[in-house]
């Protein structure tokens, strides 16, 4: 039983990371109807930047904030340079650009930072287990950081003028433009925010899975599964879906299929959601005009 509770807690901890990446995916999907297949590789690259900063002696939290800022700028730049010209291109082209970005990011990560597996530092006390031994210090800290990120994103979209403008731009670009919202820049800001959230998720997961250029491939898959489970049109759903997938993954990995098939579980969740309830638990039903 203790083992079971332990699995639930570590499921929530990794689920938080999936939740943040799922939120980043949904943010981009909502405004552009693109699924960013390079999200994981971008986050890995950012994590490498954080690693380099920390190795250079920058304090952890300063490095984390700096990484967020750098990733934000990178996300904005990518939207402006690579995706703006693709705004009206067919789906195959936009998917192709994401695949191109994925290839470029993985290669550059390997090129600059090398392929050896690195241990990533954690700022949290890992000496003694917390909450009666059910959860490690890093898991607790990572969950806290994830929650802070998610709440700040919520507050930003709910209570600020800029957040409102970004929501408007995603919801109805034409009307937003008419009332003076600069829709193009809102999309770029959304990209920046998504890249920044991904970077923090990368830094939180790196101490658990170790850092190498392909670190996020599996995480991206779970986040896809989480976003679909919660509903890819609903940010709150994506977050809940991310947590749910984390717990399902841990319980399933420990008791049902074994750790060797964890990735397959993401595939099964995706196929199951698409078959049973394609709109996800909280998403809007997609209607196509006939």
């Amino acid at each position, binding site marked *: 039983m203790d083992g079971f509770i332990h699995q639930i807690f570590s499921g929530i901890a990794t689920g938080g990371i999936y939740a943040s990446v799922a939120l980043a995916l949904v943010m981009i999907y909502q405004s552009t*109807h*693109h*699924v960013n*297949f390079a999200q994981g590789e971008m986050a890995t690259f950012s994590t490498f930047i954080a690693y380099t900063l920390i190795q250079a002696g920058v304090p952890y939290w300063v490095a984390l904030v700096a990484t967020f800022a750098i990733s934000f700028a990178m996300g904005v730049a990518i939207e402006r340079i*690579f995706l703006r*010209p*693709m705004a*009206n*291109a*067919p*789906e*195959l*082209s936009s*998917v*192709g*650009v994401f*695949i*191109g*970005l*994925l*290839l*470029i990011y*993985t*290669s*550059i990560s*390997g*090129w600059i930072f090398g*392929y050896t597996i690195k241990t990533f530092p954690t700022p949290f006390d890992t000496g003694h287990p917390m909450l009666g031994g059910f959860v490690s210090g890093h898991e607790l800290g990572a969950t806290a950081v994830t929650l802070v990120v998610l709440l700040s994103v919520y507050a930003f979209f709910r209570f600020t003028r800029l957040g409102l403008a970004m929501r408007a731009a995603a919801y109805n670009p034409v009307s937003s433009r008419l009332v003076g919202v600069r829709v193009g820049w809102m999309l770029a800001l959304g990209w920046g925010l998504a890249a920044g959230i991904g970077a923090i998720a990368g830094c939180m997961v790196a101490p658990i899975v170790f850092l190498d250029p392909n670190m996020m*491939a*599996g995480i991206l*898959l779970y986040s*896809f*599964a989480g976003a*679909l489970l919660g509903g890819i049109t609903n940010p709150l759903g994506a977050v809940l879906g991310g947590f749910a997938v984390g717990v399902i993954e841990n319980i399933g990995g420990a008791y049902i299929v*074994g750790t*060797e*098939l*964890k*990735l*397959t579980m*993401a*595939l099964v969740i*995706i*196929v199951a959601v*698409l*078959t049973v309830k*394609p709109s996800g638990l909280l998403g809007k039903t*997609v209607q*196509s005009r*006939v």
Partner: protein
Amino acid sequence: MNSNSTMTTVMPHAIAKPAVTPLALVGLAAGLAVAVGAAFWFSDYHLFQLTMVVVYAIAILGLSIVTGFNGQISLGHGAFYAIGAYVTAILMDKYDVPYFYTLPASAVVCAGVGFLIGLPALRLGGLYLALTTFALAVAIPQLLKHKALEDFTGGVQGIVILKPDPPFGLPINGDQWLYLFTLGVGCIMFLLAWNLLRGRIGRAMRAIRDRAVAAEAMGIDIAMLKTRTFAVSAMFTGIAGSLGAIAVQFVAPDSFTVFLSIEFFVGMVVGGAASIGGAVFGAFFIQFVPNLADQISKAAPGAVRGIILIIFLYLAPAGMAGLTRMAIRRLRRPKPTGA
């Protein structure tokens, strides 16, 4: 969403070209003669590379059928390549089946798996299929390594198979035979694809890609045709996997990561997504460009592929096939008096 712009940008001329011109036939025959002649010209290592070009061409052709002609984006065709490779390797290794009999077996298995995967995903929008197939491609090495299948798949170690000998006492070595055999199968597959795509079914596939609603109004069962197209496409790529396994004489889970699927995708786009001939060019591209880039650095092949992919998407979305068509038209009509 952008279905009609897909048509105009990706393949503007496929429908208006039903007949085979004598010139094209001569060109085809010459190309085939060069391809056969290559078996007696190149060293064994280069022949192996050319064999892999034929293998990749079939695999990309499979992807092209579903993505280029039917508009269903698949990012996981490496999984079908892997399944085909494993079917052949297991049949040859465990059951002593001759290599040429393993091809129909892997065709059946891959078509079946493709049908089952396509069934839930194809009913939804293109991105969901891209997502599902991407997930399949990421998961497939883990599945192949799994303990329950280890007796068949050899787990992480994979399976080593033997190179087939040339039959009928032909005076050629194993590599030459392997190349010619692969080339022969490749020609059959290309002929099948050409025949499928130029007829009623091919038109229906393109109609679904370009304007699904109109296609439905014409009486096409969209979900069924999409799923069948996916199955046929998986079959092509699966046969390529079988031939690849015979050529490499080895299969292991880590040869079939998600990057194999991505390579097929890059090859398809660079060659020309909705083009039969483009598949050949794409195969040359993925076989030789990484080798060239590899001399610069270990990381370079990926970056070079990514950059070339993006450049093609911007500047030549119809790939090399589109550029070639454009060049031919320019040459035929020296004075642009309005087409």
